[in-house]
């Protein structure tokens, strides 16, 4: 017997790869990260020597808003959408446990996002490797942290998905969450709070309370040679000053892993206790 877990995961992967969100994300990410600047600068003979470093920095700058956007949009509708049309109830009426259904969908979606990111980052890595191999490790870190961010965002999206009744409410809530995590945090929110309260020590908890910020700082901290490293911002500067780069990196990595594990665990616990339709 084919495991229901594998079947559900395979279907979620297939559906996600056909989703307009993921296709748009993959193509946009690929061209923005690499294609357009590389082609224009290359054609004009203006490709600078530190271009690979710029590419890695660009990837992180792009991944930080785009990865949670596509992850939240897709994951928030994953369970709510199926509930709305009745297919979730039907699936749960089959010989499959709630664990198999939930994690089949979760891992199918994460696998689809991973493939899309490999496509986006993959083209960039080839160019980076062919022009300046010393940037490859920075690139691998950027990819790894983006994947963790995708995992965290899918977990948050699943909390939304198990908590609302309709697809429309799910996508609305998912996008609002993205707006809070990316746009509001990025628009000087941290600076305003810390300056207003005159409390630098708030910077770290407020940074760690947002997986997007945690990922951004973590990825940029690993770009020792990137010209974009200067964009670390006050949070990273404070972290580095307080803990040094190794400890700071460990703290941020640990918190990012918690951001992957905790939301998915919470959403599963909610899902397990619920009726098939809410």
């Amino acid at each position: 017997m084919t495991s229901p877990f594998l079947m559900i995961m395979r279907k979620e992967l297939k559906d996600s790869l056909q989703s307009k969100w993921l296709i748009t994300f993959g193509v946009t990410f690929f061209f923005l990260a690499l294609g357009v600047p590389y082609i224009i600068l290359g054609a004009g003979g203006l490709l600078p020597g530190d271009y690979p470093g710029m590419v890695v920095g660009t990837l992180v700058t792009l991944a930080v808003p785009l990865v949670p956007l596509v992850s939240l949009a897709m994951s928030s509708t994953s369970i709510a959408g199926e509930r709305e049309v009745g297919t979730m109830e039907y699936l749960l009426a089959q010989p499959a446990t709630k664990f198999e259904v939930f994690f089949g969908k979760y891992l199918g979606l994460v696998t689809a996002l991973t493939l899309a990111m490999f496509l986006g980052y993959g083209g960039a890595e080839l160019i980076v490797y062919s022009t300046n191999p010393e940037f490859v490790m920075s690139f691998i870190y950027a990819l790894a942290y983006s994947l963790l961010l995708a995992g965290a965002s899918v977990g948050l999206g699943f909390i939304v998905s198990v908590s609302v009744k309709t697809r429309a409410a799910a996508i609305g809530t998912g996008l609002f969450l993205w707006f809070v995590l990316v746009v509001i945090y990025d628009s000087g929110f941290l600076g305003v709070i810390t300056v207003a309260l005159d409390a630098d020590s708030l910077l770290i908890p407020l940074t760690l309370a947002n997986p997007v910020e945690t990922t951004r700082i973590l990825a940029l901290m690993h770009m020792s040679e990137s010209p974009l490293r200067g964009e670390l911002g006050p949070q990273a500067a404070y972290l580095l000053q307080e803990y040094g780069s190794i400890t700071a990196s460990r703290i941020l990595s640990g918190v990012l892993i918690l951001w992957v594990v905790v939301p998915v665990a919470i959403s599963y616990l909610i899902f397990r206790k619920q009726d098939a339709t809410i």
Partner: protein
Amino acid sequence: MSTNIIIDAVNITKQYGDFKALDGLSLQVERGGVWALLGPNGAGKTTFLKCLLGLKEFSGEIKIDGYDIHKDPKKAKFQIGYVPQHPSLYREMSVQESLRYFGDMRDVKRSRLRELLEFVGLELWARQPVGALSGGMQQRLMLAVALLSDPPVLLLDEPTANLDVNRQVEFRNLISLLVKEGKTVVLTTHLLGDVDHIAEKIMLLNKGKLVVKSSVSDLFKQLDLTSQMFVEISDNANEQDAISALEKAGANDIQVKGNWFEMRIDPSKKISAINNLREKGCTINDFKIEEPNLEDAFKKITSGEEN
């Protein structure tokens, strides 16, 4: 597992806030035949059906063919084929893909898929997406999916509610064939016609509790439901003689409208009434009988519950 009880539900309670949809419900379903789960809106029929499938969280214990839906949900659900009220298959999948997808979950051989496509008459639509099928075809496809692993129990939630008259007849015929194969079919319905046509046994729920579990004929006896009989006798018959003949046979509420005598009578005493009239020399020109139906039973039980 081969005891005679195929569904064993003990003390099932399902609460939504302060409202008890199921209130300590206990019932056993014996193997074989069609069981209709009846009740007014909000009685708990669909909730109970979904508890049997583990789709609702509840307190109490449900065993399907010996397997506990809480402790051994996969094995318990393996014993059940489910047809929900509304088509719930993936619309973008083809008919064939749907059968294959759900068939693989139940380890079903490919030859079984072909058999079932023929059984429900969808072999010509095998490559069509589910979304392109009519409501009746989707209902038949869901029945095929429900039968994939040849489960002993079929749960049907309002199976004919969305079908036109011809499709209802087709669907009932399919169910009759399955019952002949030994399946136990439990269906919820608000169409008492369904019950009259295909169900031999009924379970009546009201306010989350089991009120009656019986065969249809036993139910009429228990409730003392009578037939309504109309007899037209010839002009020359004596009215008082006719009334006393009918009363002797046990008829009551006798009303005379011209040559027509209208009465209520125990279904087993109809022939005695006719014979008594003849003995009194009454010539019978015509007669009509309205047998008791489930609607009467339903009203009597639920009005008794209200009081």
